[in-house]
């Protein structure tokens, strides 16, 4: 059993007694030393042998520059161009059942055999023109025919709920279902206010705290409530405390967690996760409220979908909710709920439609990424699409949604008499077209490497750009997109062989198959980084590969014709890339500075703000938080114009970009640090200036957000809000939420 073996193998890993003594002695010394708050240096330890000399030189790669000063542009939706795309194939219930059944059986433990390749290949497309396709599991040398044709006989269709866990949602807590009134405009007396730090203009992202300029809405994970407070020139009054999980349904499911909050005019959306014990029974719940009367929010409608919540977006009045559902147990043909995701609303439960399920080409996991759309004005569900193969990161603009799924695959390559195990990480992509809530799977593709987060992706002028960290290097002639090409012959291309010799130090790992006569070793590879430009069909048109070997991407920001990203090991190169020609992206400069940025944000005219950490040049060990302002007026000569260090070592921006409030107009760069809320300003003359360091009164560890309404600044946590004057940060008042209200 995995768990047992894992524990057995990891348990002996412990610090040595000598090391423990040493650390304990240090702790005792440090504890008795009088504290000096100004000295916040982290100790350095001399253990590091083979120190790497960090290069502080600014490396500039001179290439042709596109004329003019690049302006940071908010990414806006582009005109849709119809073109011939590789559309992910749709698949029938029956085919899915057979596929899952096959994979399930193949996963069961069996006699070890000589392994040449481990892959499930689903060959061919499912457009009906090809005949039955075979699933080949080479390790067992069986071949199973599966009729992937949609017109084939389908299994029993399940119309209603079949399991206790799939019971329909009822609006039990409403006496009468309120008529769906059109939401009115935002309250008239709202002042200028800040909003969520969205990646794309026009596409709202969920956050735990929202404001509409008159009220502040705060979601509490712990107490499963949303507090609504009126903010009026610094004075705060609690208006309502909505208990989300109070209804009949949720008494039986105590494990209900709130994840997302949206406010749009008189609508409030709360998204949460309900876990029923078994993985395949988890559901993502979307509750839509009418908050015309802020003191008495009422539930308009409830929707649910199979799976664990991944992300959501709100664009043009349509809410998109993404969840991930997996089915790893043995499927039961007559019970669709054992292999097909379901949708739930007040009418009951139903499986997603067959023609709304599409499948990635090649090897797939038994998990779906399920995307649904809800019109929040009409309180109706519009559409749904499921992608078999899963997905974990979303990039959305106003016309498309890109779903990225990280995959780690293995292949075996023979090198002389040694069988080398090669790990490859890839990111599979699907583009969904969105039109007033209608979802279509429009294209699929893949790139080598893994992405960092949603900022690693961007669409601009009908091209999709993506930055990845690759577990290895990419040979010049290697195809890194189109349908997955596996190394059939087992031969290593010559450049890869060179890489293998240079970089690899094959480690002897335990042979999991006893019958193997040759040694199986793991090929150790250096990471590299890459930038790919794909067209709307997700076919690669341009790329830059093998950048910054030995490092990984720490932050990315695309800004129209230019892209910036940071890689790091000991020293942070900030790469500036010219993307004006999608087929020939070029690195324009690589600014090397100690430390790194893990969040980049355009700031005013030709400036780029970086929030990150200082790090020791030699050892790479991180230190305090650092703010950098880069001058990007000339991308061939990017400089770090100004910088400042904070007296803390962690910020909430490390975990999420939404924790950052960055507003040039009001000159605010604000976020929660280790134990205070920091507010900085920036001017070209004076650089960074700390405007305030605010105590957060209720020791909230999570989800601290700053926002402004009119002339007042509010620091919000799930437990309460503090208000300050925006001009001088003089404290005004405090509100602590009352649950009983």
């Amino acid at each position, binding site marked *: 059993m995995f768990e047992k073996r894992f524990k057995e193998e990891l348990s002996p890993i412990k610090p040595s007694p000598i090391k423990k003594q040493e650390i304990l002695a240090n702790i005792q010394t440090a504890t008795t030393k009088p504290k000096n708050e100004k000295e916040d240096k982290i100790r350095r330890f001399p253990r590091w042998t083979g120190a790497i000399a960090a290069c502080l030189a600014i490396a500039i790669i001179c290439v042709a520059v596109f004329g003019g000063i690049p302006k940071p542009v908010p990414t806006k939706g582009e005109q849709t161009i119809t073109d011939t795309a590789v559309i992910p194939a749709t698949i029938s219930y029956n085919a899915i059942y057979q596929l899952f059944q096959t994979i399930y059986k193949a996963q069961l433990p069996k006699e070890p055999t000589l392994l040449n390749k481990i892959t499930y290949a689903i060959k061919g497309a499912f457009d009906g023109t090809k005949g039955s396709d075979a699933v080949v599991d080479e390790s067992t040398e069986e071949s199973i025919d599966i009729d992937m044709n949609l017109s084939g006989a389908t299994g029993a269709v399940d119309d209603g709920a079949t399991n206790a866990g799939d019971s329909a949602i009822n609006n039990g807590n409403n006496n009468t279902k309120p008529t769906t009134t059109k939401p009115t405009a935002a309250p008239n007396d709202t002042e200028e206010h800040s909003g969520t730090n969205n990646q794309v203009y026009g596409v709202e992202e969920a956050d735990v705290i929202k404001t509409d300029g008159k009220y502040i809405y705060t979601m509490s994970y712990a107490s499963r409530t949303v507090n609504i407070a009126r903010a009026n020139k610094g004075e705060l009054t609690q208006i309502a405390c909505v208990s989300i999980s109070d209804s009949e349904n949720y008494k039986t499911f105590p494990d209900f967690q709130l994840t997302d909050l949206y406010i749009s005019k008189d609508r409030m959306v709360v998204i949460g996760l309900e876990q029923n014990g078994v993985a395949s029974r988890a559901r993502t719940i979307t509750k839509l409220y009418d908050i015309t009367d802020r003191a008495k929010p009422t539930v308009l409608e409830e929707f649910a979908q199979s799976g664990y919540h991944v992300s959501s977006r709100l664009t043009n009045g349509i809410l998109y909710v993404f969840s991930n559902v997996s089915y790893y147990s043995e499927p039961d043909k007559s019970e669709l709920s054992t292999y097909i995701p379901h949708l739930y609303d007040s009418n009951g439960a139903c499986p997603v439609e067959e023609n709304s399920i599409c499948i990635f080409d090649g090897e797939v996991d038994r998990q779906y990424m399920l995307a649904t759309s809800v019109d929040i004005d009409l309180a109706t569900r519009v559409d749904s699409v499921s992608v078999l193969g899963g997905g974990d990161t979303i990039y959305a603009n106003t016309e498309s949604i890109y779903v990225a799924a990280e995959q780690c695959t293995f292949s075996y390559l023979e090198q002389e008499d040694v069988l080398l195990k090669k790990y490859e990480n890839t990111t599979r992509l699907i583009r969904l077209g969105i039109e007033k809530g209608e979802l279509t799977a429009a294209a699929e593709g893949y790139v080598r490497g893994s992405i960092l987060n949603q900022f690693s992706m961007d669409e601009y002028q009908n091209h999709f750009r993506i930055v990845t960290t690759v577990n290895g290097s990419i040979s010049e002639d290697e195809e890194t997109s189109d349908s997955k090409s596996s190394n059939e012959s087992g031969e290593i291309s010559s450049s890869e062989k060179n890489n293998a010799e240079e970089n690899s130090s094959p480690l002897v790992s*335990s042979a999991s198959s006893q019958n193997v006569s040759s040694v199986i070793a793991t090929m150790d590879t250096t990471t590299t980084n890459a930038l790919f430009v794909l067209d709307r069909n997700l076919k690669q048109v341009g790329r830059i590969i093998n950048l910054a070997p*030995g490092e990984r991407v720490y932050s990315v920001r695309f800004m129209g014709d230019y892209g910036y990203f940071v890689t790091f090991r000991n020293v942070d190169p900030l790469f500036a890339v010219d993307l004006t020609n999608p087929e020939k992206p070029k690195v324009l400069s690589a600014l090397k500075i100690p430390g790194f940025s893990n969040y980049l944000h355009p700031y005013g005219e030709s400036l780029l703000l970086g929030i990150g950490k200082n790090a020791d040049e030699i050892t790479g060990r991180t230190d305090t938080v650092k703010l950098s302002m880069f001058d990007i007026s000339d991308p061939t000569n990017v400089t770090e114009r100004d910088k400042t260090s904070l007296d803390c070592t962690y910020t909430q921006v490390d975990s999420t970009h939404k924790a950052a409030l960055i507003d040039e107009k009001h000159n605010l760069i604000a976020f929660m640090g280790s134990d205070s809320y920091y507010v900085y300003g920036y001017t070209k003359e004076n650089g960074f200036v700390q405007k305030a360091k605010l105590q957060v009164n209720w020791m909230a560890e999570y989800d601290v957000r700053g926002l402004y309404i009119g002339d007042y600044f509010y620091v919000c946590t799930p437990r309460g809000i503090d208000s300050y004057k925006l001009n001088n940060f003089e404290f005004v008042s405090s509100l602590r939420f009352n649950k009983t209200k």
Partner: protein
Amino acid sequence: MEYQTKEQNLHPCYIADAATAFETYSDMVYRLAFVRTGNQADADDILSEVFLRLVKNIRKIQSEEHLKSWLIRVTINCSHSFFAVVKRRQESPISDCTAAVLLEENEVLPTVLKLPHNQKTIIYMYYFEGYSVAEIAKLCSIPAGTVKSRLARARETLKKELKGVNFDV
């Protein structure tokens, strides 16, 4: 402890002691650091750093549970700068004897260490420390859906790789 917040006034006074915390949690911090960095030398350094930071921030700790979660988060933060995917040194590929021994005798551990960082952290917390998905989500400040999705992916990868090992989901 002079420093009290409004919140702390409502609870019985909890006084954390760094040395005691070290006795209790050094193994946990060490193993988490080891899983993330893949080598014991880095784990040693992270262990020192985490507990020194604890000394500096000891007054902020409100409860035993808070202490544990604080330690986990700081360990994860510290290990960011230690990601070593490549053998940096020019000497023999395996300079750390323990690593060689580990890899020769062990079946599942090397495979777990090869997983992407996010996934192996969750595997460690789920299978070794016994945290639930909800607890992991809270500790790492990520949605439970992300935890579950990473866990699922990691399991799929491990199941494929560890064919000889019975893996129940």
